[in-house]
């Protein structure tokens, strides 16, 4: 990840300032800082969910409410120790988050936030109308937290706990984002097609990130309950849920520090607006909403990345180079024997409504050969690619890959068997570095999960994954761009990044959709050279390409498609002389 070189120093400075703050600040500011800390924890969850994962929620306040009310009820009614109510609250929070996620995450992206709005309202009224929860008056008399013999009764005492928890979540979040699972979450934002083709179980990743965000809110709610020692429904209303999202967006929804900056800004702003707005308007009421709403619109119009990037720009930048040179190589899958059949498509058809895009197409690809698929626009080549790789399954016909039927498997399972692909329209994550993008390709070659990543128990595996990514990048001639952001490269180079990413999966069969488009002459030659080397290693390559010089010079066999059907196939020179092919390209002569 790109970070300021002073990141660690900044963190230390931050911790230092925090450590002395309660000793020197008046009560009012300590309380303010306590709230900023509590809000930051929730906003941090939203940074992961919205800024990183591309999902969003207006119901985080309700999750905080679950944490708070669970503890309030268990401690006041059943006398359970607050330290036991935390895991209980988190359990309930994650159960709700997982079920809400299961219900909405298969639908398009906007159904999750709509679901959270509805659920935020429901829970608010539920809290307010159940007598056992104290109705709208709430529950008082919640016991204070106790650490050893020390009771955390005052705001000053609580301060350290809140900020320690916040720092813990900041570190865990940063670690998580800088890991295998973190990359999978970041890949969600680019749409699920690419992530699935790289073997990521995207529904699972979405539910996990949604649950993690909910858990952060749950922790914050639990802290709130014991800080206030009183809960009522208001702080867990939808309005507060919306405010949490504002904090994350205003601060910078793609940055860990954005959450804290946003929480700080909004909290301080709210405080001062509540002071002078009613005086200005001559009425009492929550008029800060007007300013917040307008501020949000302004941010979304003018500075969609929020405030943090503006601060970040002032800090010197350095790119962290991972140290992975000493790592072991990843194990490779056994190579199929050269010449053995890798892929066999039999009578593959694809219909879109009445339109037949692929009509009973049959062909094979062998290990150690380059097979080119050519044909005029609209002949059905990319459709066939999507059918084979499971992105958009065929309507009928069979696809066997390494002896196994795969036509009804999801893309990620086909990827697991050793098929890897690139896309006609490049699908990279533009904000991530080249090496991070390529490492997504190696997703299935690692196994460390979220917890391991959050507490950095994944480092040796991570080093091996990055080493593999670096190896593939060098192989594709991109060594100098390894730490540049993928979006800053020209299109031709981005295509090479896609190939490196596909190679990082250690594939037996490589599907390349127009790899030479946008490449310059010398780049094309280098690409052809790379593909020949891969072929000699025994990888099978299926290639869709329009550049005929490229195809004819590289392919071992060529198949020509027209109107979704196979028109001709054979050696390149045979196909070039085939009058049917000439006609297909240049049009019929009457």
């Amino acid at each position, binding site marked *: 990840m790109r970070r300021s070189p002073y990141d660690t120093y900044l963190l230390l400075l931050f911790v230092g300032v925090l450590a002395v703050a309660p000793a020197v600040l008046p009560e009012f500011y300590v309380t303010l800082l306590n709230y900023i800390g509590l809000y930051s924890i929730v906003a941090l969850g939203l940074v992961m969910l*919205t800024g990183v994962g591309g999902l969003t929620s207006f119901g985080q306040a309700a999750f905080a409410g679950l944490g708070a009310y669970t503890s309030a009820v268990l401690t006041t009614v059943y006398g359970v120790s607050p330290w036991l109510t935390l895991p209980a609250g988190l359990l309930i929070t994650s159960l709700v988050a997982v079920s809400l996620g299961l219900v909405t995450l298969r639908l398009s992206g906007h159904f999750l936030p709509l679901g959270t709005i509805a*659920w935020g*309202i429901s829970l608010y009224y539920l809290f307010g109308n159940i007598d056992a929860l104290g109705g709208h008056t709430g529950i008082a008399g919640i016991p204070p937290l106790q650490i050893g013999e020390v009771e955390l009764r005052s705001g000053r005492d609580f301060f350290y706990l809140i900020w320690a928890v916040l720092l813990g979540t900041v570190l865990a979040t940063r670690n998580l984002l800088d890991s295998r699972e973190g990359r999978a979450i970041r890949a969600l934002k680019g749409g699920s*097609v690419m992530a699935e083709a790289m073997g990521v179980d995207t529904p699972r990743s979405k539910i996990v990130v949604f649950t993690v965000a909910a858990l952060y809110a749950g922790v914050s709610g639990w802290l709130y309950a014991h800080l206030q020692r009183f809960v009522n429904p208001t702080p867990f209303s939808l309005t507060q849920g919306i405010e949490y999202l504002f904090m994350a967006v205003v601060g910078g929804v793609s940055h860990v520090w954005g959450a804290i900056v946003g929480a700080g800004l909004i909290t301080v702003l709210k405080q001062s607006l509540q002071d002078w707005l009613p005086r200005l308007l001559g009425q009492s009421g929550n008029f800060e909403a007007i300013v917040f709403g307008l501020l949000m619109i302004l941010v979304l119009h003018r500075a969609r990345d929020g405030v943090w990037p503006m601060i970040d720009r002032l800090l010197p930048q350095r790119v962290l180079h991972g140290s992975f040179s000493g790592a072991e190589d990843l194990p490779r899958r056994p190579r199929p024997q050269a010449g053995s059949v890798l892929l066999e498509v039999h009578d593959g058809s694809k219909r879109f409504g009445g339109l037949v895009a692929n009509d009973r197409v049959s062909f094979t690809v062998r290990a150690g050969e380059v097979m080119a698929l050519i044909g005029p626009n609209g002949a059905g080549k990319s459709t066939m690619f999507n059918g084979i790789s499971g992105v958009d399954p065929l309507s009928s016909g069979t696809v066997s890959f390494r002896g196994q039927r795969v036509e009804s498997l999801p893309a990620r399972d086909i990827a697991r068997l050793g098929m890897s692909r690139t896309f006609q329209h490049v699908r990279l994550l533009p904000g991530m570095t080249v090496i991070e993008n390529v490492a997504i390709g190696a997703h299935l070659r690692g196994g460390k999960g979220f917890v391991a990543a959050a507490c950095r128990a994944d480092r040796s595996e991570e080093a091996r994954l990055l080493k593999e990514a670096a190896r593939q990048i060098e192989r594709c001639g991109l060594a100098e761009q390894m730490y540049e952001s993928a979006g800053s490269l020209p299109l031709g180079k981005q295509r090479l990044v896609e190939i490196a990413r596909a190679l990082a999966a250690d594939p037996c069969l490589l599907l390349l959709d127009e790899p030479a488009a946008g490449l310059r002459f010398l780049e094309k030659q280098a690409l052809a050279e790379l593909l020949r080397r891969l072929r000699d290693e025994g990888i099978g390559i299926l290639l869709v390409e329009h550049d005929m010089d490229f195809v004819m010079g590289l392919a071992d066999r060529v198949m020509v498609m027209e109107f979704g059907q196979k028109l001709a196939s054979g050696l390149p020179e045979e196909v070039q002389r085939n009058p049917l092919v000439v006609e297909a390209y240049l049009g019929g002569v009457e």
Partner: protein
Amino acid sequence: MNLQIALLLGQDGVTSGAIYALLALALVLVFAVTRVIFIPQGEFVAFGALTLAGLQADRLPGTIWLLLALGTAIALVEGGAALRQRRYRRIPLILLVNCAAPLLLAGALVAVSPAGLPLPIQVLLALMLVVPLGPMIYRLVYQPVAEVSVLALLIVSVAVHVTLIGLGLFFFGAEGSRTPAFTEVSFEFGEAVLQGQTILVVVASLVLIIALYFFFERTLYGKALRATAMNRTGARLMGISGQLAGMLSFTLAAAIGAFSGILISPITTIYYDSGFLIGLKGFVGAIIGGLASYPVAAAGAVLVGLLESYSSFWASAFKEVIVFTLILPVLLWRSLTTRHPEEG
């Protein structure tokens, strides 16, 4: 529950259901045409009702200030663009539409005492004050970011909602208002009493729905909106710009919202923030229709109205909980019937 209560609750349910159905249609329309999930739809309900109440109480409704402010802002934006592009001839029209017209309306409101005017004129004035806010908000807030993702547009919508709620409090105060019934007629069927206002709401909603149907099926502008919803690029190539379609759909949504508010304000007390929950119930209906199907959305909204009405009898404290929890089984059902996860 005896038959009389059942009928009474049913009558209530159908009345609110009719309003929710109107709102659901507006929400589906706006979403289909602009991809905007129009959370502030409900604020137009409240603004419509409270503006009418203000006129009837002979107060200058605060919405006029919003109208003037938004008009000035648009005149600045569009006038600036016209100056930059050296298209000076457009400037008088820009000023006329965005500044002069609202000023004229404000002047008229100050000059005559609206409380003394007949009800239809008051309603017309209230609509003139509130409906233009829809396209104005589209022009200023949504159009500059029309190409961003549905999710980002949703966040914009929530921001607009929050702003309008705050403004509503400022304009109308925390007190609720109720306007006098349009009609005092009532019918008795045995023991059941049918209120004239209830019939009016249902009939007016039906008429509006039929009018919308004709607009979409029979007029070229209506077809243009449907075309934009179906195929944005295709529509642009026919000269149907995103701006035109956006402003038109927001005008319809604002009109439907304000009119709904005017219809129900004799039945229920409307506060500055009442619109939100009303709008969201329309939303539950719209979501039942997958934000895509007009008839299913309308039917879903009537179902929401009935559910709300009967649950207020059985478990009045949990009325909102029941209505908003309904969305979960609906989403589950949609999720199970959707084969491929769509790209967000």
